[in-house]
């Protein structure tokens, strides 16, 4: 199988940041807070780039849905070895309510448009912990899914996936095209090298609107409240 891989990369609050909830309890403070690529998305990019280096796939396309700053996340993917990027611009109210359902519709539409044969996503994002986008995307495309992948082997037009499940490890063989979601132990993402960061500047990022892909971004979910848990009181010995 040689073809195009779509890798979804999400811009999230950096894992090391101490999160603060907004005073009006309507969400988490994001202004001026350091953001970076979701760690599981980094693992997904690394896997895609490794497949390209083994010449098992032809082209790696990094996709991100979000505001202007999402382009930074795509650039990081390009610096790691992705060939080009697609930025689906979603901002303002639409971005606040953007969730797995809308993103999976976008990924499905892009997969058809780009004639992708493999979609690799992180298993979940560290901000919402939804763990849904990969599964929904596969369902929308009616493609098999290899989720929580800790080992991926391409075997002709099939993929062998070792999945991390509660009971241990499960090995499945699925047809392509397919959706994979990356778990922690799939690989160790590489550092971008200085030359690759500079080369990434020349790689193209296409701008696309969700509407052009025929995707309705309206959310069916409404966040009622965001609460900080009560701090545990000291015990008595």
């Amino acid at each position, binding site marked *: 199988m040689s073809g195009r891989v779509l890798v979804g990369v999400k811009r999230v609050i950096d894992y090391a940041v101490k999160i603060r909830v907004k005073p009006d309890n309507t969400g988490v403070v994001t202004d*001026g*807070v*350091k953001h970076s690529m979701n760690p599981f998305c980094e693992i997904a990019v690394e896997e895609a780039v490794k497949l390209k280096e083994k010449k098992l796939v032809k082209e790696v396309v990094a996709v991100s849905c979000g505001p202007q700053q999402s382009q930074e996340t795509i650039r*990081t993917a390009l610096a790691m070895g992705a060939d080009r990027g697609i930025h689906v611009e979603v901002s303002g109210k639409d971005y606040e309510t953007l969730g797995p359902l809308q993103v999976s519709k976008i990924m499905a539409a892009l997969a058809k448009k780009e004639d992708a044969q493999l979609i690799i996503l992180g298993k979940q994002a560290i901000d919402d912990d939804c763990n849904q986008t990969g599964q929904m995307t596969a369902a929308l495309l009616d493609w098999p899914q290899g989720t929580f992948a800790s080992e991926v082997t391409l075997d002709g037009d099939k993929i062998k996936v070792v999945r991390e499940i509660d009971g241990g490890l499960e090995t499945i063989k699925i047809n392509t095209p397919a959706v994979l979601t990356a778990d922690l132990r799939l690989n160790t993402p590489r*550092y971008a*090298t200085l030359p690759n960061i500079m080369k990434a500047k020349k790689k193209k990022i296409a701008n696309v609107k969700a509407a052009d892909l025929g995707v309705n971004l309206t959310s069916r979910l409404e966040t009622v409240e965001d609460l900080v848990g009560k701090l545990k009181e000291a015990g008595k010995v």
Partner: protein
Amino acid sequence: MCFKCCLCFVQCLHKVWRFSINKIRLYIFFNIISDPCVSPWTASYGLTDEQKEFQKVAFDFAANEMAPHMAEWDQKEVFPVETMRKAAQLGFGGIYTRPEVGGSGLSRLDTSIIFEALSTGCVSTTAYISIHNMCAWMIDTFGNDEQRESFCPDLCSMEKFASYCLTEPGSGSDAASLLTSAQRKGDHYVLNGSKAFISGGGDTDVYVVMCRTGGKGAKGISCLVVEKGTPGLSFGKKERKVGWNSQPTRAVIFEDCAVPATNRLGEEGQGFNIAMKGLNGGRINIASCSLGAAHASVLLAKDHLLVRKQFGETLANNQFLQFKLAEMATKLVASRLLVREAATALQEDRADAVSLCSMAKLFVTDECFNVCNQALQMHGGYGYLKDYAVQQFVRDIRVHQILEGTNEVMRMIISRNLLTES
């Protein structure tokens, strides 16, 4: 309970508390390096997207590959060859050396940003990497094509390591009075003399040596590249230092050491000029290393103030400490601005570049040492223990006020330039 039991109980509690505090300290240390808070004194403001990417790689590398080993490298005096080669694979071996010979071809400002970030992981190792970079640049800039192709690729990949040899037992600040002689004999120069305090000396492969081919003074000095293994080249004992322990420091001794004349960089008599041009950039790099240490120390101090309680409240509620921290952060930001301006001036070859580089080295190494020292003070007794990283930052950057031109010599350069201005 009887008195003895009380005492045992309290001692037990104290041990448990000390143990958990230590674990928290280590945890805090490993997580502070790439500070996620975007506050006025973080290092990313005013940078291009590309520079932010460079900085991110350097911060990540420092946090993952260097910081966990910083204390061990210092204590066991390990020269971390494998880690430095990993850094070279990312392009850190010849950051401002030209790409045709394996370098990354970046600007002085990019370089400063990178060293500042790397330094948060280990000052000593980053400082050595900067010296190595300086040597690679000198060969790339002043060498002919043969010399560049022969030495630079291996240096940029850190297949081979380099040392910069100017200082002698009898000539430190008065560098131009150096005595190591290089007598022309046929197609060789025969070197006699010795160099002192050479970073990497004995463990490195390529020595960029300033030696006397002509008469007295700066105009009689040339620059020769000497390779390890050349007969007549030997090394003194490894020095025992207060800091910079992840790089060996030795005397480099020449006894009738014959070096091919084709190893001379530039013309005879150009050596001192080459050395000083190398040092301009070297001074920015050393200042950048001091910045990184100060950055890390301020974060460590901040975390300590938020955790440590005395007199019923955290130290962060103490106004004196609040004001002290504010001063430290201010000095850090001011230092950073000066270094980056000096780097830009050097890149653009501006007329004020030499003065700015000297000013940056003078101001930043002094101020950042004070910042690190105050951070140590804020830790109280814990600051003095080697379990806590802040003392290593203090020890490691103390020497930045001395080498690559003492801060006194920096004053000489600045005042001379000022007073000879028309």
